[in-house]
């Protein structure tokens, strides 16, 4: 039946005319698809990041495209599933624990856009972890003092105690060290200035919470803490806005937002 209809149309129009119609239809299809893509991208960009997570269709569209962008640009550091790498201080994007901001789509997008210590003028670069075991702990603040090895040991004892590690509790020597560490934390060391008097961190400047057991570097044990305090930390994420453009940035931000939701259950 279909073959008969096809033959009839062919005999009426001629093969050249049919080819013209086919090309025209293809051009229309491509144009329509471009317009449709442009419309969805415009919708995606105009959506308020605070409301976008409620738009299931847009989230799914952006998430799928963001996954591929993530694979090409971010996976080399963050891992293909965003699991990070604590041996290199690469954050896990699935655990729902955010160093910068509170994990809103807008916060994530800002990090992707302008990076962390990326040298972009709008980058997140308000604080670095001083290298207390060096002559000049902070290149920005000459008032931050160096600490002695004993000071650093005391601080480590205090931090392990705050995280509830049993090995840091009990012995009299440890108790004295913890007390000295607490004093250093809230006085000479100046740790309270970024990490807060309670040590719970400050997401506005990327200062981690020191009272939980989520660690960015190493296993969070004495050795890793000593390394961090002695030699400092200042992780970097490039600014992606010039590479990915606004649509790409939003799509990858949506993907990462989804990763965290799935990862943290």
């Amino acid at each position: 039946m279909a073959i008969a209809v096809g033959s009839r149309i062919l005999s009426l129009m001629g093969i050249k005319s049919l080819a013209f119609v086919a090309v025209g239809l293809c051009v229309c299809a491509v144009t329509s698809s471009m317009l449709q893509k442009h419309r969805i991208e415009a919708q995606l960009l105009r959506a308020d990041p605070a409301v976008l997570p409620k738009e299931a269709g847009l989230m799914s569209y952006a998430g799928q495209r963001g996954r591929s962008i993530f694979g090409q640009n971010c996976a080399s550091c963050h891992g293909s599933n965003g699991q990070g790498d604590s041996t290199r201080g690469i954050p896990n994007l699935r655990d729902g624990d955010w160093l910068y901001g509170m994990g809103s789509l807008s916060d994530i997008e800002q990090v992707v856009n302008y990076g962390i210590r990326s040298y972009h003028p709008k980058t997140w670069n308000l604080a670095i972890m001083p290298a207390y075991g060096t002559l000049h702990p902070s290149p920005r603040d000459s008032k931050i003092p160096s600490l002695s090895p004993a000071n650093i040991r005391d601080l480590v004892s205090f931090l392990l105690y705050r995280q509830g590690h049993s090995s840091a509790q009990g012995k009299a020597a440890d108790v004295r060290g913890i007390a000295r560490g607490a004093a250093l934390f809230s006085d000479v060391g100046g740790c309270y200035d970024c990490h807060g008097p309670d040590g719970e961190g400050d997401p506005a400047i990327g200062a981690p919470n020191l009272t939980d057991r989520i660690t960015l570097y190493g296993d969070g044990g004495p050795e890793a803490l000593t390394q961090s305090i002695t030699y400092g930390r200042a992780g970097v994420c490039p600014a992606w806005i010039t590479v990915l453009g606004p649509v790409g940035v939003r799509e990858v931000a949506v993907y990462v937002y989804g990763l965290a939701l799935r990862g943290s259950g």
Partner: protein
Amino acid sequence: MNRVDSSPGPVRTRRSFIFLGCGATIGLLLAGYALFTARGTSTLVVPPEDVALVNQQPISRIDYVQQLRAVFDVDFEHATSDQRRKVLDDMIREELFVQRGKELDVASTDPEVRSAMVNAVELEIAADAISTQPSDQQLMDYFAAHRDRYASEGIMTVADLIFDVGDPADAGRAAAALASTAPTPEFISQWHAKASPTVGDEQFYFAAKIHLGDQLFDIAKGLGNASASAPIMRHDGIHVLYMFANHHPVPVDFATARDRVLGDYRNESISRMRAGDETFLRKRANVLIANDLR
């Protein structure tokens, strides 16, 4: 004999014109779409990623949302129309003034603007330098080439005993006695010596160098655990150093040093790129220097 009529019939001509018209319309649509959506073109439509265009200069939507949060601590959804308008007006005002500043060429007169521009260009070069993530192999090669930089900081516990210049023999005898005993407070008082305030404190090498000074530090570095130096004559007295414990710097492996290696690698890339950019700028510039300064 039959002749084949090859001239186009009226139907075919009409059909050709219809196709030509369709093709032209589609072409114009595509060209118009590309023209009005391409970056850098003048347009009457605000691109979806922006909230406004001020003389074709975009004000980014994400910056606008961030500004709303910074000024009113509110997201776009919950901001009132007054709040939205206020922030947008402020951002447009800023853009207008920046553009006016460019017209007035304030950079040629205002040192702060000049300094900000120099800084911004340097930042941009640095941003380019760090946008490429070095591979582990590149980092390991860099680590191997600069192996001496990556060691733990040395730690020493040292006492600096100072004897009166009046009796050099005393200092010599005290130094000999230190071969079998540590400098306890009793020992120090018995030999009428003064002790540095950091006696018995563990210090990083850099701190000990500051406390002891270069000459004494160089001698201290070479002392083994529980050993004393020979008397050292200085302007303020005769010094004898007693080393309680000396932990020399230990080279660290790549895994431990990776973070520092990456930082150094990036800093070197930035310096290299800045130098390259400066060379390029100098090369293409027409710089004339007065005769007396050549």
